[in-house]
């Protein structure tokens, strides 16, 4: 057994139609910063599709434009060229979509709100009645083991706990499409694994469509159904392959399994070139 590696730079039209139910479609997406001589191409003609309920990892070295792609899909930054379609409908520039949830790499928990007020934020501004809100917040906190910290302010929490608050703040609004920008990048290895366990558990239940940006191959293998590999600057689509690991997965047991190790080393060696280029940076 091994990774089925597609070496096409762009998914063929056949591959697009083969995926029955496409939720997010990214078509020759371009992003350039600056203009004239100072123009820098960050993202170069990137195309891919994400099917309903699919967990896709966008893997690439630092500075390859993977977060830029994610931010364009989220509507946070305008794109220079290309198109993004959600359920077949093109996205307007700078438009923030209701069905999209986003988890940041940086700590964006609101420090002036308690844990429960942070998690309930999206419901509060959507006008969900206080009673229902309380119940849903309590359930969300219970799912990530933060019930005891409901009334605490974020400054009293560890980095991992704060990221669980940020995760639930997004998930409680029940987004169908979840965009995650290296959400566990700042956490230590142990906490990271714990977060993988929690995320897998939550995702198995809801099966959101996920686009997960990371530069960590182990993380991508642990979580994703499919990995899209980007090249170093400018970001181009390099590989697009499925992760043949069974679900449900156990984040910790998976790491110790021989399949994981085989897959990891296989991909590492075939893709190693790109990664070694970046590790040196």
């Amino acid at each position, binding site marked *: 057994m091994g990774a089925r590696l597609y070496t096409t730079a762009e998914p063929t039209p056949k591959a697009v139609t083969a995926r029955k139910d496409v939720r997010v479609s990214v078509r020759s997406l371009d992003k350039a910063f600056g203009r004239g001589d100072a123009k820098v191409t960050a993202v170069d003609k990137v195309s891919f599709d994400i099917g309903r309920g699919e967990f896709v990892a966008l893997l690439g070295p630092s500075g390859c434009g993977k977060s830029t792609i994610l931010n364009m899909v*989220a509507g*946070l930054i305008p794109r220079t060229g290309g198109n993004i379609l959600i359920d077949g409908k093109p996205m307007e520039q700078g438009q*923030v979509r209701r069905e999209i949830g986003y988890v*940041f790499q940086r700590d*964006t928990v609101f420090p002036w709100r308690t844990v429960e007020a942070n998690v309930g934020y999206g419901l509060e*501004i959507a006008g969900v009645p206080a009673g229902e809100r309380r119940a849903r917040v309590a359930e969300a906190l219970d799912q990530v083991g933060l019930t005891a910290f409901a009334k605490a*302010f974020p400054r009293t929490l560890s980095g991992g706990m704060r990221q669980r608050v940020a995760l639930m703040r997004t998930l409680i*609004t029940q987004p169908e499409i979840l965009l995650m920008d290296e959400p566990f990048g700042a956490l230590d290895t142990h906490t990271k694994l714990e977060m993988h366990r929690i995320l897998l558990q939550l995702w198995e239940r809801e099966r959101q469509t996920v686009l997960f940006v990371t530069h960590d191959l182990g993380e991508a293998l642990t979580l994703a159904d499919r990995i899209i590999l980007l090249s170093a600057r400018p970001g181009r689509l390099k590989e697009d392959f499925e992760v043949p690991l069974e679900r449900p997965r156990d984040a910790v047991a998976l790491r110790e399994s021989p399949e994981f190790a085989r897959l990891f080393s296989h991909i590492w060696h075939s893709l190693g070139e790109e990664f070694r280029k970046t590790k040196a940076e």
Partner: protein
Amino acid sequence: MASTQSSTTVLLWRVVILLLLLAVWQWGYDLRAFAALKPYVPNFLDPYFVSKPSEIWKSFLRLGCLTDRGGTLHGWSGMTACLAEDANNIWMATAVTLKNTFWGFLGGTLSGIAVGLILGRSDFLSRVFEPYIVAFNSIPRIALVPLIILMFGLGDISKIVTAWIVVFFVVFFNTFEGTRAVDRDQIAASRLLGANSWTVTRTVVIPSTLAWVFASLTPAVSFALIGVIVGEFIGAERGIGKLIVEAEARANASEMMVAIFVLMVVGILLAIGVRRIQAYLLRWQPQFDQASA
């Protein structure tokens, strides 16, 4: 901070220094009686200028209608009669100055926050108004006081307006800077969770700007007091500033010192008050951890 000195030692030294200062103030000038010490006693210790703690205390009791001119304690009726006699007795003067400081502070703070938020959230408006604000801000506010008194009269309004203007700029600039310092990702997170522009302002920009606003409130409250006192110097019917100017006219150092001490106490109490509010509203910030506990 870990200190090698215990807090008792610190307190002890504070008391020692206070007693030493009071002793020099009270008896220092008398040392001129000894010919050998005379050249070492500076002129500013002359009670004609700085009075003496004992005299200041006596003046306080008299101005406060607690004793009569002879120094014997008033009874209840004597006190009421004394208070009725002087419309600008120390209690009334303090109340008036405090009242004007409060309204000026409140008005200046609220309008400063409002304008700071509006200009901070609108690039267009902030660019349009920038030269006006820079120009107006370069006028020393105190220079406006005679004009304000001309416009609003000798009453309380002119003092409130002075304090208002002084406070407004301090709070405005801090609020404006605060809105510029709001974490872009927190705003993005709020928008992605469904917030519109006003909701972002209300739930993200205002709370995170509050820290900046409050950083300006401690100086703002002292500035408000300064504004009111200067207004009272230049032209007023009542207030502590008026007491000071009158005492100066009579070359009465004790009464002047009483007024200054009352101002000191008022200033301390106002600062403590602001800090209490600050500690509560900013209890989510680490540096206010102790204060809120």
